[in-house]
């Protein structure tokens, strides 16, 4: 029997609920459909040209990037999460939260910093040439592996965070049982802990993979053209927006395919688990060289992904300080206010919509609706520039129709209400970042089992008390995490902001992009540092909240 917690609440099934849900899903999917609909009228000539020239390279590079970033984030993210969960070693408590910090550095900033450091003219290669001669071997950073390295270093925190949560919420008893039966700790990890955390880890890797598919700025620094880069090549270079949309439509279909795999994987692994007050996986104290090794693993990752880039930014910032004028200072201040406004608005809005979609689809109790609602995550794998096009065109049409209507009726034209304001921008952010908020909110809702609700109802709680006393506290961490992740991502966001912001509404990221495009690295430093630092605050709050939650669990 399917138990829907609300069936006895209302006399007749609500029609409004599914309607709100359908409209929300439709609005989020619309831009993707606009773009993908170009596939119905394929530009055969362009496709023939692409197939004979750059398409094989684009596909090969994309596959390589996808594999490399998935494998890299999987190994680093899961490995570090396991280290932090199951072992004690010097610095563990600090590393536990610090390992998330690289998330605050935008991949494109990391890209030009790594380029500045490891390129032929950079300090490291110069040192090697100076010491071992002009022809001494040094790996070529401007390559596929450079792009994979940089993207892995900025994206592994997604996997780390989710894997850590997956490990931490496991009851230790299974693990202990396996060990009691003679399994080594390593074997117990692979046979018990890893499979149990698999849904979380898969979700993290899927996020990282989709992010790498959508990236176009970083791959360009490393001269490693992927399909996302190809979209811009066709649009900007061959001036064929139609063919570019077709390429983007194929990318969307592919990411839909990825989503399905991840979903099937999760579906098969479906289980309701919450260890509640049971003890977690036992922590083993490391000593001697194993402790040193563990500390070193964490420290090196953190240095490569956060310390080194931060150091380079600081060096540039010091140079910038020497020539800083009050006018430039005022500009930075204005940019920071704009960035914060956009990020907060988007964080709130996206998580709210995610909450609506996730809860309404669950409340409906219909399997198809729940599956349908997962469509809202599709925007994450589509390059921001493409989403912007998919929104700009229909919204501009709406704007023009509205203006024609008002001038016919009342003789006045309000101008561009949608494309000329923050509405278009927010809409694009929603489409692009819904996946992050949705998976976060949805995962926390997964923890609310039908039993929890039934138990509460059986104990006499009414629907409102169930919502406020049982459900909300359980999903709050997920809601908060979703909002924070979107906030940080919007702070870093580039292509959508560049294309859809109102006149003169510049952000820190836009400034960094402009200066980087002109190779004025010192001028990127302060705004980039502000992006990183502002991103750190909510990340810290989030981590404190989650560890406070843990303590409550244990205590």
């Amino acid at each position: 029997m399917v138990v829907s917690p609300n069936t006895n609440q209302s006399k007749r099934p609500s029609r409004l609920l599914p309607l709100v849900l359908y409209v929300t899903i439709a609005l989020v999917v619309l831009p993707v459909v606009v773009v993908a609909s170009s596939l119905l009228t394929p530009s055969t000539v362009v496709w023939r040209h692409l197939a004979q020239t750059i398409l094989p390279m684009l596909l090969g590079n994309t596959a390589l990037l996808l594999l490399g970033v998935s494998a890299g984030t999987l190994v680093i993210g899961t490995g570090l999460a396991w280290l932090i969960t199951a072992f004690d070693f010097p610095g563990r408590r600090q590393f536990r939260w610090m390992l998330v910090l690289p998330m605050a550095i935008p991949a494109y900033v990391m890209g030009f910093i790594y380029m500045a450091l490891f390129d032929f003219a950079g300090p490291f290669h110069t040192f090697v040439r100076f010491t071992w001669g002009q022809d001494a071997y040094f790996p070529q950073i401007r390559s596929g592996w450079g792009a994979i390295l940089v993207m892995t270093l900025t994206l592994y925190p997604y996997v780390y965070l989710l894997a850590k949560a997956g490990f931490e919420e496991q009851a230790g008893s299974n693990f202990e049982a396996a060990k009691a039966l003679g399994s080594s700790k390593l074997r117990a990890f692979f046979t018990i802990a890893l499979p149990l955390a698999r849904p979380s880890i898969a979700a993290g890797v899927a996020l990282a993979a989709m992010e790498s598919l959508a990236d176009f700025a970083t791959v360009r620094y490393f001269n490693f053209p992927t399909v996302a880069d190809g979209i811009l090549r066709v649009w900007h270079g061959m001036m064929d927006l139609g063919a570019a949309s077709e390429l983007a439509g194929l990318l969307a279909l592919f990411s839909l395919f990825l989503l399905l795999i991840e979903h099937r994987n999760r579906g098969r692994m479906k289980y309701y688990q919450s260890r509640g007050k049971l003890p977690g996986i036992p922590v083993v104290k490391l000593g001697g060289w194993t402790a040193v090794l563990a500390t070193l693993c964490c420290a090196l990752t953190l240095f490569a992904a956060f310390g080194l880039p931060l150091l380079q930014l600081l060096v540039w910032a010091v140079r910038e300080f020497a020539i800083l004028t009050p006018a430039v200072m005022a500009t930075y201040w204005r940019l920071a206010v704009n960035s914060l406004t956009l990020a907060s608005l988007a964080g709130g809005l996206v998580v709210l919509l995610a909450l609506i979609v996730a809860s309404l689809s669950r409340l409906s109790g219909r399997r198809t609706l729940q599956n349908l609602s997962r469509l809202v995550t599709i925007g994450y794998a589509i390059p921001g520039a493409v989403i912007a096009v998919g929104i700009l065109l229909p919204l501009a049409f709406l704007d023009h129709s509205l203006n024609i209507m008002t001038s016919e009726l009342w003789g006045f034209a309000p101008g561009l209400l949608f494309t000329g304001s923050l509405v278009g921008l927010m809409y694009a952010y929603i489409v692009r970042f819904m996946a992050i908020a949705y998976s976060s909110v949805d995962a926390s809702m997964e923890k609310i089992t039908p039993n929890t609700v039934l138990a509460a109802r059986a104990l006499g709680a009414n629907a409102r008390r169930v919502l406020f006393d049982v459900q909300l506290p359980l999903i709050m961490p997920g809601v908060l995490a979703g909002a924070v992740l979107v906030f940080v991502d919007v702070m870093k966001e580039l292509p959508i902001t560049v294309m859809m912001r109102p006149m003169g509404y510049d952000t820190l990221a836009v400034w960094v992009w402009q200066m980087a495009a002109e190779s004025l690295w010192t001028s990127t430093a302060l705004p980039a540092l502000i992006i990183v630092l502002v991103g750190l605050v909510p990340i810290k709050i989030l981590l404190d909240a989650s560890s406070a939650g843990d303590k409550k669990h244990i205590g």
Partner: protein
Amino acid sequence: MNKKHLFAGLAVLLVIVLFGVGVFVGRANNRDVAAGQVINIYTSRHYGVEPVFQEFTKQTGIEVRFTTGSDAALRLRLQAEGKHTPADMYIAVDAGNLWLAGQDGLLAEVQSTILQNNIPANLRDTNNRWFGLTRRVRTIMYHPDRVSPEQLSTIEALTDPKWKGRLIMRPSTHSYTQSLVSSLIAAHGNAGAEAIVRGFVANETILIDSDTRILEALAAGQGDVAITNHYYLGRLLEGNPNFPIKVFWANQGERGAHVNISGAGITAHARNRANAIKLLEWLSGPNGQELFAGSNHEFPANPKVAAHPIIAAFGEFKTDPLNIGEYGRLQKDAVELLNRAGYR
């Protein structure tokens, strides 16, 4: 009304309120669009624009607001916004994009004797929809320790196998490369240009997506010759007068060096058209030229204005007389040619 309705209603209300906030914040930012004493600009040129516009505001009291972006995206936005666009002026960093904007009907004709007098005919649109304001020369750069100027002659000659592994250029994604190839198509036809580009590929040309980085790599010894815009060397010399790289004016014995422009046009639906024309005329005059071209070490489009001393020291040279609108017309061909030749 039951609770589910209440919940859904509240959510919808909240979305509407947030929508209102979005419209308000965005439009408050645009509040003085209609006020008259303002010019709104879409620009893909984002270096040194602020000081120039500040000076203009100081002299005229007209406020200048601008939105930066990439060329194609700004054009798409102009097109989508149609007659409601807030933009009065479009500034681009190459002739190809201006030509395309003119072609798409995004720019309006401007009849101004000041502009006619200040800007030479080959640096502006034949229909006066856009005007070149600065000239940038894409030419050969070399390290004097490893290359002597006698070894250099034309862009085409860099396909000689003796430059194998020694040449640095910019990837095909950049409009600078595309315009250069367009000029090769104009000079040699499609097949001739393709043979030249294939020569670059066969020479295992190193591709770096930043002219500054190219010059730094050249100085560090990653290559011996390169093709970049002249002003990037000017910028590096400004910071370090001993920067070792030297400029070589290419193709002097024949058609002349490849020159491009940074320029502007008035949008077809400009609401502050008079102000925008005033700015355009000011930019073409001595004061504007000095600031606009000089701050970026570019050559003024106005022949009566002297170049910045650092680039004046690069010496006299002859430029390709080709009408620069051709770069726009040939851009698609150039990109397809680059793809066919395997130039990344």
